[in-house]
């Protein structure tokens, strides 16, 4: 992918010397991981949904169908790319890329273990949220560019939903940020130098939890719940999957996309899932921290467990109506997250 966002300038400070080599290797690794991850997650989702529904799910391609999603991907790759006639060409063609690219950039900033992070940026949490917000533009481009009323409706729903749910998402994350910054200034040993922990850096949040020995979910359960709900909504998954609401809007914003372009939307959905789960892991579940096993195992174990939860959600609940979805956000989640934030601040002040 040539249109990766360029690395921030601070990268140069961090990596001495062979910048481009490092960049290439990191990108390839991320791409490879994300592809494998999406293939695995789709297979996992199909298996989980099948077993919840007392079916077997994919069985015939490979052992218990593990290669099913590989077959799906190959097929989508070789499928004709239908381009409808009356579309807005630039928007239509650019949309999958815009949806797809930012999610790759986000992964680079996660600390899989204390010393395993591709990009250690001070504002990594903010970056993740910023990149998460770009995808929505892609969705709107897809809906608008397709010249299809279903796609347009889906895109408009998607924009309204994502923008609304970003508020509780960030507010609940802020509670953690406040917690890190507001706790007795934890000093972290970094290159033999002491510096205050930054609440807006993913790695610092994880380090704080690791050092304290407990996870923030214990002191911030409400924020964790709000984050989880908002994250499901951000990834447009059931019960908040109204932008693509199959039974209402046919396929929503990607109604007119076929073959690989459709696959990119599909891919982006599952990659988004892993990103929001990784953020949750770092914010509330201590990142890599855990006994016995090495850090990355804990990190990915927690992440995939959260994803499993999201899948469990999806296959249990019916879909909300659009106005209910919005009113749930504005009348329940946002007030609750504000109250939570205020209480956190108050308690920190009193301590």
């Amino acid at each position, binding site marked *: 992918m040539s249109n990766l966002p360029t690395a921030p300038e601070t990268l140069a400070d961090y990596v001495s010397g062979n910048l481009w080599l490092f960049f290439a290797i990191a990108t390839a690794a991320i791409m490879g991981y994300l592809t494998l991850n999406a293939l695995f997650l789709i297979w996992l989702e199909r298996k989980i*949904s099948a077993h*919840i*529904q*007392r*079916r077997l799910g994919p069985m015939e391609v490979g052992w218990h169908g593990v290669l099913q999603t590989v077959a799906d991907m190959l097929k989508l790759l070789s499928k004709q790319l239908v381009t409808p006639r009356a579309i807005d060409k630039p928007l239509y063609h650019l949309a999958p890329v815009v949806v797809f690219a930012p999610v790759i950039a986000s992964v680079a900033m996660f600390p899989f273990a204390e010393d395993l992070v591709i990009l250690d940026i001070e504002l990594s949490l903010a970056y993740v949220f910023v990149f998460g917000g770009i995808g929505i533009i892609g969705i709107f481009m897809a809906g608008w560019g397709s010249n*299809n*009323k*279903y796609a347009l*409706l889906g895109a408009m729903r998607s924009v309204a939903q994502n923008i609304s749910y970003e508020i509780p998402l960030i507010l609940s994350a802020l509670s953690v940020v406040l917690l890190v910054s507001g706790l007795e200034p934890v000093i972290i040993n970094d290159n033999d130098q002491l510096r205050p922990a930054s609440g807006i850096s993913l790695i610092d949040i994880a380090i704080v939890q690791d050092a304290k020995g407990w996870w923030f979910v214990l002191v911030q359960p409400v924020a964790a719940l709000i984050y989880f709900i908002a994250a499901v909504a951000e990834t447009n998954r*059931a*019960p908040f*999957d*109204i932008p693509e*609401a*199959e*039974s*209402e*809007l*046919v396929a929503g914003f990607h*109604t007119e996309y076929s073959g690989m372009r459709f696959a990119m939307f599909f891919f982006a959905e599952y990659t988004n899932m892993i990103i929001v789960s990784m953020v949750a892991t770092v914010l509330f579940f201590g990142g890599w921290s855990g006994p016995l096993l090495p850090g990355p195992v804990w990190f990915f174990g927690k992440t995939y467990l959260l994803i499993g939860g999201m899948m469990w959600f999806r*296959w*249990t*609940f*019916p*879909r*909300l*109506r*659009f*106005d*209910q979805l919005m009113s749930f956000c504005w009348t329940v989640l946002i007030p609750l997250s504000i109250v939570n934030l205020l209480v956190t601040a108050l308690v920190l002040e009193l301590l």
Partner: protein
Amino acid sequence: MSTEPNPEPNPAMAPDGDPEVYYLNMGPQHPSMHGVLRLVLKMRGEEILEAEPVIGYAHRAHEKMAENRNYLMFLPNTSRVDYLSGMIYNIAYCQAIEKIMDIEVPERAEYIRIIACELNRISSHLLWFGTFLLDLGGITPFLYCFDDREEILDILDSVTGSRLTYSYGRFGGVTMDVDSAFVARTRAFLARMRDERLPKYRRLVGDNVIFRERCEGVGVITRDVAFRYGVTGPCLRSTGVAYDVRRAEPYSIYDRFEFKIPTRVEGDTMARFDLRIEEMEESCKIVEQAVDGLPEGPIMPAKPKKRYRPPAGEYYFAVESARGHFGTYIISDGTDVPVKLKLRTPSFSNLSSMPDVLRNTMVADTIAIVGSIDVVMPEIDR
């Protein structure tokens, strides 16, 4: 997915100069249009100003076929008119001919018919339940319902040999006798249904806050609308009118069984859901009584007629299908080919009320409402 503006001269659908008004065409291929229903919606944003159902995409000329063949040869058509309650339609047609021609049906056959019809009603409601949830975006309950439905299909398959389009009824009886295994399986199914499955559906779906939010107060059919549009079946009963053909004009041996006619007064989607769940329970009750009272004896008259020539005249016979009042109107001229055979199908009238009900709802509600009135397109289009 044509996005052409509505070309039809329906005055309600005409554009009224508002630039924000647009038309959305749902169907005939749309995941929640239950086959081939097409809805043309006049909308502003997500709000529906006017809706016009367009039907006929499953028109198969049943009535013309009836005029082209003798009474017996129309039998297989009956279960294909409404394939979800094919047994009820099939038996209803037999009952109509029996009534016209004074054919005595053996007791045992009557009981078997009741069992088969009520099982069919349960399976139809189960399928409705599943697809309705599918429309609302809940996929898992759909598969649970199909599990139960498979059990009913297996039970019916063991006597009729078909899973869906039963030609089980014959003029005067049924094609095959039931045995003790059938009875035992039916009993086991009833027990499972009442003790385990229906309560589970209530907890998984009926109590679910998202589901209730989606259904309560949505798509209210008032008693007046129901009356003016000739809405029958669960949709009518959800408005508080206890009209069920099985009680109002008892046919077969329904007057021998104890069962309630569940009603609701709200008339909304939730009422229709509750009502159908309760109807399944009542149907279970009827089946249980019929299984208990199943007499011994023949299943067909000793000497079935070879040719069926109803005396000249016109006849009307009504039954309660899973969707409402199903009437068979037959005009005979004394030959073995009907002059006219009109099927008064309930979904036709139920769907015709949609323009009134859908007005000023949201797109998502449209799906829920159309799903909740339980339409079967080939039954409407015939």
